[in-house]
């Protein structure tokens, strides 16, 4: 039943992509047919996923496609269930959001059909990836996902920068795909067979298992955007239309996480704690660097993209910890870390999509993607303002929203490090926890900056000042996600109960203790060790707020008087006097100096006497260090190799004959 629903979800997505083909003629098809179908797909997916999570059974079937000796195997277990849910919810939100968003394209020069077709394929691909139960179908849908999202990234292909981003994205997606393929190849070789069942029973030597793990880690890490394999992410995500960015950042990265979990916890069998260490370290590094780079961005969507890297890092940190615990024979603790990671996966999907949808609305209404020219949007786009605030609060991990719960669980897991035998690990985990703490604080700073600069203060450009009118669907979709963020934060027990089935399936233990004391209390290890009651916290905040208001707020007279800002008595305020995004991030830039590559240029113009400074211009460019260290050398090497090779084709026929001649002689000599 659940599986059928999931398949219907895939089917609906495919149909929607098929009908979008007609948008060449009638653009309105997208609004009135394609997006509703996607909505159906999303709804089916969400329901199917929740069903799978609740009854925790394993459903599998096969479709009459694929290799002659191996049909497409599909399987819906709790892990797939979780991710189907995530994909479904976000897809649904996007479907609600889409019509209002694409309306303006209908008059533009961009072919809407392209958008519709590939959106459908993209979603279908993602669903199929998490449903696949054999390596072949997995790879097909995986690459389908990459390829269609690439076409979506290339939707605005006029600017050279976007083309470059698209190319980079496709290239890295392909390389990652090959790595994954190879790691499946290892498994298939030992388990002879591409079906996951065969791979589960593959008798792997620890060495080969590690090889497979390394390949999978590279492949999935590349897709998920782990530092230093992240270069494509901040390029590609901002370029796509915003609801696609939401899907990519909110869901596609999660699909990579899914692949990683499936590979490590399910297929590879015995988990080695060494792998956990790798994931832990790279995860924390990605988290820290991700947020540090995010905070320096001035492009709204680019900032969000980097923050995705950060959150992926946090997720991998949790996974790594869980692998360490499991690998060292502490499955119960491993379960906590795993649940924390999964919880954060879910949360990130929700609030990052929410933020991207909001960003899309801003970009469309204000025609502006650069924070330096924004400001005062809170008043102009009130709904987006509120929902975006909720998104920021959640991603900054403030109680009682969902982001906080997952980080809290992660910390709780980290605090159990003392249970480990190995002293090195015991010291390593608090270290990473400290990095996580730093990340959390920085992400708070980052989103204060984002919200403060974009939504508060005065508008810094004309177009932003005149931003108005948000379509209903756009508001509703954001509202939906915002509510989910709040609910998941206030009732974590329900979520944890659902997630519990997953560690149960993999390692046979779960956090039964976590929710043992009813829906009110979340106690991952034991009540006396740590407890958190989100509902009460929410009640408390509201109560305290209302009481204060009730006490403080004067009855009747003496309301507020509006006047010009005081500003220590300086003159009237202009938008240009406000703290800019660059200025806001300056202290942090100084504190963590060498992390970024910074090109700064300050030009002073003085008047004829050279006394008075007439104008100062300040330019600054922050570039990603991973380029100079990793990517450029590789491309240089390949190009020089190509140059050397091209000497082969030097044009003289006698030389060519000589090649043939000497090849012949060589071979004759070899065989005799």
């Amino acid at each position, binding site marked *: 039943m659940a599986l059928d629903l999931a398949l219907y979800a895939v089917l609906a997505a495919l149909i929607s992509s098929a009908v979008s083909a007609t948008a060449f003629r009638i653009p309105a098809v997208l609004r009135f047919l394609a997006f509703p179908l996607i909505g159906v797909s999303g709804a089916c997916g969400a329901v199917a996923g929740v069903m799978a999570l609740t009854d925790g059974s394993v459903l599998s079937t096969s479709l009459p496609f694929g290799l002659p000796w191996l049909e497409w195997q599909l399987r819906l277990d709790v892990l797939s269930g979780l991710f189907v849910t995530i994909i479904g919810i976000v897809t649904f939100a996007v479907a609600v959001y889409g019509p209002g968003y694409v309306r303006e394209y209908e008059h533009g020069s961009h072919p809407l059909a392209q958008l519709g077709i590939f959106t459908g394929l993209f979603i279908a691909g993602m669903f199929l990836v998490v449903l696949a139960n054999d390596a072949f179908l997995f790879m*097909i849908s995986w690459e389908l996902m990459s390829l269609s999202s690439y076409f979506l990234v290339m939707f605005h292909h006029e600017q*050279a920068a976007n083309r470059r981003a698209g190319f980079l994205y496709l290239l890295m997606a392909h390389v990652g795909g*090959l790595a994954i393929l190879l790691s499946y190849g290892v498994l*298939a070789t030992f388990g002879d067979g591409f079906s996951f069942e065969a791979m589960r029973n593959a008798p792997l030597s620890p060495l080969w298992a590690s090889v497979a793990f390394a390949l999978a880690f590279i492949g999935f890490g590349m897709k998920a955007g782990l530092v230093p394999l992240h270069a494509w992410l901040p390029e590609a995500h901002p370029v796509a239309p915003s609801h696609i960015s939401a899907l990519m950042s909110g869901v596609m990265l999660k699909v990579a996480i899914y692949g990683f979990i499936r590979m490590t916890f399910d297929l590879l069998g015995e988990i080695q704690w060494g792998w956990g260490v790798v994931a832990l370290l790279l995860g924390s590094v990605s988290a820290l660097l991700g947020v540090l780079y995010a905070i320096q961005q001035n492009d709204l969507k680019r900032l969000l993209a980097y923050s995705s890297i950060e959150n992926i890092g946090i997720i991998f940190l949790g996974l790594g910890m869980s692998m360490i615990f499991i690998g060292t024979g502490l499955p119960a603790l491993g379960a906590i870390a795993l649940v924390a990671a999964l919880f954060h996966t879910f949360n990130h999907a929700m609030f990052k999509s929410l933020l991207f949808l909001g960003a899309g609305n801003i970009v469309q209404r204000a025609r502006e993607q650069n924070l330096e020219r924004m400001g005062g949007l809170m008043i102009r786009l009130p709904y987006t303002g509120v929902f975006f605030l909720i998104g920021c609060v959640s991603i900054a991990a403030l109680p009682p929203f969902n982001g906080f719960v997952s980080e809290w669980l992660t910390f709780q897991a980290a605090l159990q490090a003392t249970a480990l035998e190995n002293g090195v690990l015991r010291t390593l985990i608090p270290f990473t926890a400290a990095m996580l703490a730093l990340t959390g604080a920085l992400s708070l700073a980052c989103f204060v900056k984002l919200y403060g600069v974009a939504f508060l203060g005065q508008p810094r450009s004309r177009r932003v000042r005149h931003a108005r009118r948000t379509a209903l669907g756009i508001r509703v979709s954001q509202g939906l996600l915002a509510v989910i963020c709040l609910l998941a934060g206030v009732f974590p027990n329900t979520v944890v109960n659902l997630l519990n089935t997953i560690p149960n399936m993999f390692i046979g233990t779960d956090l039964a203790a976590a929710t043992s004391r009813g829906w009110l209390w979340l106690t991952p290890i034991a009540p006396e060790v740590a407890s958190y009651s989100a509902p009460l916290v929410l009640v408390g905040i509201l109560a305290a707020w209302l009481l204060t208001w009730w006490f403080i707020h004067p009855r009747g007279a003496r309301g507020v008087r509006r006047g010009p800002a005081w500003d220590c008595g300086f003159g009237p305020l202009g938008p240009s006097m406000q703290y800019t995004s660059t200025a806001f991030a300056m202290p942090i830039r100084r504190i963590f100096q060498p992390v970024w590559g910074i090109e700064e240029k300050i030009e002073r113009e003085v008047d004829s006497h050279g006394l008075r400074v007439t104008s100062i211009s300040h330019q600054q460019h922050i570039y990603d260090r991973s380029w100079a260290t990793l990517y450029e050398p590789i491309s240089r090497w390949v190009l020089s190799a*190509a*140059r050397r090779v091209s000497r082969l084709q030097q044009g003289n026929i006698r030389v*060519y004959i000589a*090649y043939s001649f000497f090849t012949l002689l060589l071979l*004759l000599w070899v065989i005799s």
Partner: protein
Amino acid sequence: MNSVYLILLLPLSGALLLAMIRSPVVAGWLNIGISVATFLASVNMALIVLRDGPFLTDNSMFYIDAFNVYLIVLTSFVGITTAIFSRPYMRYVLSEGWVNPKRMRLYHSMYQIFLVTMLLALTTNNLGILWVAIEGATLATVLLVSLYRTPESVEAAWKYFVLCGVGIAQALFGTVLVYFAADHVLHMPEAGLQWTVLYSVASQLDPTVMSIAFVFLLVGYGTKVGLVPLHNWLPDAHSEGPTPMSAVLSGLLLNVALYAVVRCKMLVDPALADPGWGTPQLAGYLMMAFGLLSFVVAGLFLYRQQDIKRMFSYSSIEHMGLMTFAFGIGGPLATFGALLHMTVHSLTKSAIFIAVGHATHIAGTQFIDKIRGLIKTQPAVGWGLLIGTATIAGFPPFGVFMSEFLMLTATMQSWPWLTPVLLSGLAIAFAGLFRNIHPMVYGAVPEGQQPVQANMLPVALHLLIVLWLGISIPSFLANWFDQATLLITGSHFL
């Protein structure tokens, strides 16, 4: 039985007919008609084979088994689609004044002659005839390469002619040696080159002679396959000849040459299996070495290309290398993958060349830097080229991915430490292709670039078939592949 003769006679007579006809327009249509007829004939024969298995003509001149039957159908099919494409394209060429009506006649009749030689090479049961046919293919196409009479095209044709001539001569020497070896086993001169006979006695043939023979055959036919370092003629011929020619060269000729190599390997392997001989895998090793070398080197060649057709010809070399490698590995899985790859590659590559033809027509040049913004100019062509490239780059759900998947897995199983090489080769080739294709299809339209009257039906057809093969292989085809695998490796796959 006479279905075979039908297949050969139809295009032959067609060629003579086309040599008569003066009007290019009529010739264009007739060309299509004849190809269609040939295709129907081949389908008819395929059905016969499907019904009652492989057969040998009474005079044991022709032999049809699972290995060549699908190649025959494929060849005649690509023959049609390319003919469909070449009709408007050659008219454009004529209107540009690059050729005169006389040469158009030459073109059309040679087109059919070429098909004849291909089909002959596939159907014949005689190694000698196989050689004759492949040499004949060279002779038929060499004049077409120089059809435009530009200095470059003449140079390309000369190189093509001489290099392939030399190579093919070596192949003949190899054939002579095989005959010589066979002569001592069965003392019946007439049958000494018949493949069926040879195959039956292959295990008794003298390993020394056969190994020498195989070297000559490999270098000879390998030149035709375009194996590095014998490949130099290939990019020249592809880039300078008329585009339909490039399509059939890449799509068919290379396949047939590879077919010849594999047939020879099938004879050599049992012979070398003889205990007195040291390395029974010799043929396989040689093919693997050649294949891997071609694969990697061709991938690197992609980067600095300035001529779009040249670039895709290198990609053909790359894929030929991959197949040779896979055949070299032997083993059912690899062979199955390679057979599948032969099909999907020739379909995809000819489709790409057709799209490229339209693209060059739109831009009026073959220089990559001059071709821009195709998707905006003419979406059909742009998308055709883009999807085709994605397909050949091995993106699912297209068939190329499936075959590459199989071959990679096979490598993983038997030569695990070679897989990284293959994978990096794939990645490099992929980047090389796309960094050139990207700016061509995307971006703004240069001024004065107009859509042209293009027929994208063939491209769509080919790509759809490849897609179909990628999603699921029809059972009869799978069976043929399996039979062929049985023939080549001696063990079933399915």
